[in-house]
């Protein structure tokens, strides 16, 4: 466990642990929702092995009146729904904080934890008294946590009412009763609690979502009409999100027989003019890669979510990594223009997703949203999404009417040809997986000149892409002791670490390559050239981002931090690294 010297003075960190199947994540999310409803910020982290039951699950949440960028390692309140939780996590308390537990779970003689304030709550009995079922023990525990923190119960009550709105009224009543009883028990505890959190009344508008929900909302806002997927952790929850809303929102959501079907269906739906998307993890993307290339050569506007988990092959389904970067940039035989966007948090996940559809339509080529389990799975409070900012730009597209002398792949200056949908009178065309001529016919595409000019036509769209893709994001001062380059969700612990080392007087700035392809070589080169010490922080073994920087910018960096054990960077780990780099002569 990380012991951190970095100040985290105004926040409370709660960990709930228990056996798989005990509803740990749902309980945690209910708690987080209560805090956000009370005007606070939260960031949660759920860890679970790739097993349904029998494994140990935990949910960790930070709560603070300040904006939070990432998870952190320490815990202030440990909620133990089994004794394993105490064994595994008591050390995180580091001699302070509280443990909420059910004496019935504890070993004979009780837990031997030093320093922590032990809060005995008869969770099982509370549930039985309220006539509830044992899975409600976690609700009692939530009440106890709030009581212990001297935090009002009302927001939790509201959260429970919302959560069980569709269930029988008695279920809600039982849950509320159980929470209240837990609250009362917690209030009796006389722990010397370091931080006192209070509801904030004038809080700005905010949402509590995970990355997949943010992507799903972005896709819906963008007018997605067809979504196809084969379940694969950590992308499955996006399928569930879309499936739950498909009928109401007029989206055809197809759980396909495999990932090959998903990607090919999406290309077919794009041919029909629907805004079409699929999402998967790296393994599914491997199976999609041929059809991904099909989208490239056929100039199909499709959006593909690739949410990385550690590989290779089945790898570590429920953990995180950033190791698919080069794969998505080079996937599929041959060469074609593509755009790869890597959101770093839920706000970017929403924005980049709707923008991805515009880019795909304007460029008539596949756009990848490259995420990872750390982005997909964990909820974070964030400013309410800018719904009014969403635009729909479908580029060169004719959906109705008629056309004459139509050439699907007409060679143009910027490489983009007018797309006329099937159904338009006169729109005879062959959208083709073969190389082809301007009409789309395959045989003439074998001519060397036709091949060359169609190949160049497609590639010109990459030049166009450079002018319209989102630029890198910059954080921190212009001049800094250490300059960081990262992509995707690693942005989160880096920002958190920047705050941590900032308190020690170390200045750090950050360039996040929001678009990773086409690579923003110009901006990255400038950033490196104006920096004192540049480090690359990325969640892989091989240094794929660093390789891109070397290739595209011909620049060496000062140092690097990589992680490839399935876990996201802890901000404390990043802070230590930055401190160390800053301290070098």
């Amino acid at each position, binding site marked *: 466990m990380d012991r951190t010297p970095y100040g985290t003075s105004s926040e409370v960190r709660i960990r709930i642990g228990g056996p798989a199947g005990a509803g740990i994540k749902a309980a945690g999310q209910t708690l987080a929702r209560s805090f956000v409803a009370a005007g606070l910020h939260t960031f949660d982290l759920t860890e679970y092995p790739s097993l349904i039951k029998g494994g140990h699950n935990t949910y960790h949440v930070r709560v603070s009146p300040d904006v939070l960028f990432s998870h952190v390692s320490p815990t202030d309140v440990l909620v133990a729904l089994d004794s394993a939780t105490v064994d595994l996590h008591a050390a995180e308390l580091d001699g302070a904080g509280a443990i909420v537990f059910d004496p019935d779970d504890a070993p004979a003689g009780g837990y031997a934890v030093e320093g922590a304030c032990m809060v005995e709550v008869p969770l099982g009995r509370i549930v039985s008294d309220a006539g509830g079922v044992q899975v409600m023990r976690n609700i009692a525990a939530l009440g106890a946590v709030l009581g212990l923190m001297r935090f009002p119960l009302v927001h939790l009550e509201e959260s429970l009412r919302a959560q069980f709105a569709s269930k029988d009224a008695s279920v809600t009543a039982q849950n509320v009763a159980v929470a209240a009883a837990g609250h009362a028990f917690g209030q009796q505890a006389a722990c010397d609690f370091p931080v006192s959190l209070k509801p904030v009344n004038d809080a700005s508008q905010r949402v509590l979502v995970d990355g997949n929900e943010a992507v799903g909302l972005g896709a819906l806002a963008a007018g*997605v009409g067809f979504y*196809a997927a084969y379940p694969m952790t950590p992308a499955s929850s996006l399928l569930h999100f879309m499936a739950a809303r498909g009928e109401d929102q007029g989206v055809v959501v197809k759980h396909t027989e495999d990932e090959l079907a998903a990607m090919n269906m999406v290309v077919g739906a794009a041919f029909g003019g629907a805004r079409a998307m699929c999402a998967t993890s790296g393994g599914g993307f491997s199976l999609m890669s041929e059809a991904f290339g099909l989208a490239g050569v056929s100039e199909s506007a499709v959006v593909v979510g690739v949410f990385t988990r550690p590989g290779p092959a089945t790898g570590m389904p429920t953990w995180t990594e950033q190791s698919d970067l080069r794969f998505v940039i080079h996937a599929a035989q041959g060469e074609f223009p593509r755009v790869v966007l890597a959101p770093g948090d839920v706000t970017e996940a929403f924005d980049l997703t709707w923008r991805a559809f515009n880019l795909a339509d304007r460029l008539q080529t596949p756009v990848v949203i490259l995420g990872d389990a750390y982005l997909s799975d964990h909820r974070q409070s964030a400013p309410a999404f800018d719904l009014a900012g969403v635009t729909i730009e*479908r580029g060169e597209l004719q959906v109705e009417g008629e056309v004459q002398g139509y050439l699907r792949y007409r060679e143009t200056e910027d490489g983009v040809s007018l797309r006329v949908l099937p159904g338009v009178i006169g729109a*005879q065309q062959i959208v083709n997986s073969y190389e082809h001529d301007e009409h789309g*016919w395959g045989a003439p595409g074998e001519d060397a000149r036709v091949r060359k000019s169609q190949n160049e036509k497609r590639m010109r769209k990459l030049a166009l892409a450079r002018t319209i893709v989102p630029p890198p994001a910059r954080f921190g001062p212009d001049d800094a002791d250490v300059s960081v380059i990262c992509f995707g969700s690693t942005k989160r612990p880096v920002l958190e670490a920047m705050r941590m080392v900032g308190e020690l007087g170390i200045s750090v700035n950050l360039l996040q390559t929001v678009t990773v392809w086409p690579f923003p070589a110009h901006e990255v080169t400038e950033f490196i050239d104006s920096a004192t010490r540049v480090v690359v922080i990325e969640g892989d073994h091989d240094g794929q981002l660093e390789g891109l920087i070397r290739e595209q910018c011909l620049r060496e960096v000062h140092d690097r931090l990589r992680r490839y054990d399935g876990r996201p960077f802890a901000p404390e780990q990043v802070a230590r690294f930055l401190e160390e780099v800053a301290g070098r002569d």
Partner: protein
Amino acid sequence: MTEQTSFDTPLKPTWCPGCGNHGMFKALKTALTDLGWEKHTFAMFWGIGCHGNGADFYDVQGFHALHGRSLPAATGFALSRPDMRTVVIAGDGDGYGLGLGHFVHSVRRNVDITYIAHDNQTYGLTTGQTSPTSEHLAPSVSTPGGVLEQPVNPLGLALVQGATFVARGFAGDVAGLTELYRLALTHKGFAMVDVLQPCVTWNKLNTFKWFRDRVYQLEGSGHDPSDRQSAVALSMKTFREMSCTPDECTIPIGVFYSEDGVPTYQDGLPQLDDGPLWRRAVQPRDVSGLIEVHGGPR
């Protein structure tokens, strides 16, 4: 603007002289013309193979998909364009080898698509390797000692999966084939026509003559196309005995099974009630009701 009525493009078919694909080309163009299908009312999809080279020869709104993946591409289209019809042209290697999973899943989906297989029992385009429907023990460059597998029984597979229209045609019987196409094209649901298509270049066993000696019309033979079980039996008989002599066995062509009124996949999608799905992307969708916002002015 009136549409051109010919379904020919300026590109002349490059199929070998005498190839069964020519007859299939003719039959389909005739069926489309007979039915009066205008070119903007349907889309065609092809896999990769000699059959797929047809993409250059039909003047339509079409999509030349990947080898083995024409069905999923067509399904994506069909499920987003309720205003159009969808026709898929596959090969036996393409559709029953690589694409076998998609085929069976499409059948059980009863997706409203017409599926035509150019079943020449060989890989024509890649110079005559064994195909999934090659005869048991037939030799080829990829199996010089003979295919050890039983051939795929596409009709049987479709039938046990609840297919609603299952037919077999013969490229040498253009009139009969045209009629089967008409039935398939107008069937509501997944309609498959497996067409025995002699490949004169690579398949020296299953020639026009070989088939002519064996085929007979199901119509008038006493077969009841509403009887799924006997259709299955028929499919199994022929699939296991194709290499037999004309005296030993015959090959039925025509409609094996046909059932109306089974809901299609599209029927289960109210999302399609108001037309093509590109309509969803005219204005940004208002998602404010889909996300809980906390705090701020209420």
